[in-house]
């Protein structure tokens, strides 16, 4: 290796710092689900900080039924070629070979996702074995900590994907951040019981009691359909948002995508939120929770 007198030691790839570091770079941004290069370009043009490549958006997965799997590598590569921003892709829960394939493709983040049909009903992927970082969904703090202990470098609320209904994501964000606040008030003896109740490693529970935050960023996913939804998630403590069906299942995706990006940056300014929310056409229709046949958020253990 050539080097100048300035340098020392060799580079390390795939470390926790490097993997969590990319998650930090997504903060304040919007990650958009896309199913083809054309949608990926619309997302990049709108200011997405990354795209999630998948074969069908969750709303279509709900309608179509059947087994939802990792996308065709050709389709993922088409999206990688179409945009310059980071490209994420989804693997089934526990399907470590899909994850190996996605890593070989050079995707920038893997979402071990409940939106796809689980491949393992007891085990998630051992994410420590990978150079590529993973994001995982969670409905509560215990689930978030189990995923972090398996090596996840970014946690997102599960919400209820493909519904255009923010209610579940709100529930999950409040549950996670509410329990974090409660942990900071617990005394050291109580933390042992907290770990037991949360079914989470004691060391992580103790760390959060000390710092008052997750050791990795927390984003919102599942049900964001409007700029106001994105700002709500941010005000509830999400550091960035994933938007799935909400953009490309709406009447006019490009302006809606742009408005959600602007709302995520200016989530505390109601005047800007009012301005960017105007005249976007109809959002996706959405589904009430009582009308759901399958709750995707129940997947994951």
């Amino acid at each position, binding site marked *: 290796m050539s080097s100048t007198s300035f*340098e020392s030691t060799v580079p390390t790839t795939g470390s926790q710092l490097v993997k969590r570091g*990319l998650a930090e*770079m997504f903060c304040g941004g919007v990650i958009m689900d896309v199913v083809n290069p054309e949608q990926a370009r619309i997302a*990049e043009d709108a200011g997405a900080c990354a795209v999630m490549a998948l074969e069908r958006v969750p709303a279509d997965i709900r309608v179509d039924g059947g087994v939802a799997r990792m996308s065709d590598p050709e389709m993922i590569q088409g999206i990688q070629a179409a945009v310059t*921003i*980071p490209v994420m892709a989804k693997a089934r829960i526990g399907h470590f070979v899909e994850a190996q394939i996605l890593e070989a493709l050079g995707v920038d983040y893997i979402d071990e996702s409940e939106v796809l049909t689980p491949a393992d009903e007891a085990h998630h992927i051992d994410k420590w074995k990978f150079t590529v970082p993973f994001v995982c969904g969670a409905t509560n703090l215990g689930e978030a900590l189990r995923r972090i202990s398996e090596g996840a470098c970014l946690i997102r609320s599960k919400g209820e994907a493909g519904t255009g209904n923010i209610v579940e994501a709100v529930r999950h964000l409040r549950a996670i951040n509410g329990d974090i606040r409660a942990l900071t008030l617990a005394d050291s003896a109580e933390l042992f019981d907290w770990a037991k109740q949360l079914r989470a490693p004691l060391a992580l529970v103790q760390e959060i009691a000390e710092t008052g935050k997750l050791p990795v960023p927390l984003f919102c996913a599942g049900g964001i359909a409007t700029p106001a939804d994105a700002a709500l998630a941010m005000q509830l403590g999400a550091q960035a948002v994933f938007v799935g069906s909400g953009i490309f299942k709406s009447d006019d995706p490009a302006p809606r995508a742009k408005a959600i*990006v602007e709302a995520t*940056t200016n989530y505390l300014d109601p005047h800007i939120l009012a301005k960017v929310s105007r005249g976007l056409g109809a959002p996706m229709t959405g589904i009430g929770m009582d009308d759901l046949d399958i709750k995707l958020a129940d997947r994951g253990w």
Partner: protein
Amino acid sequence: MTTGVLALQGAFALHQSRLESLGEQVVQVRAPADLQGVERLVIPGGESTTVSMLAERFDLLGPLTEFAQSGKAVLGTCAGAILLSAEIQDGRADQHCLGAIDISTRRNGFGRQVDSFEQDVQIPVLGDPPFHAVCIRAPVISRVGESVTVLATIDSRPALVRSGAIIVSIFHPELVEDLRLHHLFLSL
């Protein structure tokens, strides 16, 4: 003195907490009016195309250029380096740079996330020990003008450069506990 952190998208909150731990008063900058009273500015890492678009949509390109040309101190890290540069390679056609420092940057010049890395780097102006540089889909500084001083290199390429009161790094000092680079920035 108030330090501004450009908060359109990216790792602005981490920079803010590092600066606050050094006793600085920090404001987040999302609009031209937020720059009032700001004496120093950090342009953080994030997605450079997103930051460029939002800077344009919220009328910040002109005010940011003026700020950088006024001689006030500016620290740009990663995407911030790209925004401050004079020329962007492998960017979007509509991507803006401020031309605040005479360098060319090539986006993602070190590759995709699987190529991202951390490494100890000797930075003589910061003294011993070496600084732990974390490079995330880092840009390559592919050209430096005569007005620019190279303060450190990684893989024989400039990793930390300075011109006047403008400091630019391809790595992320906000991701590590070491505050020496923020301290240097505050001393300008």
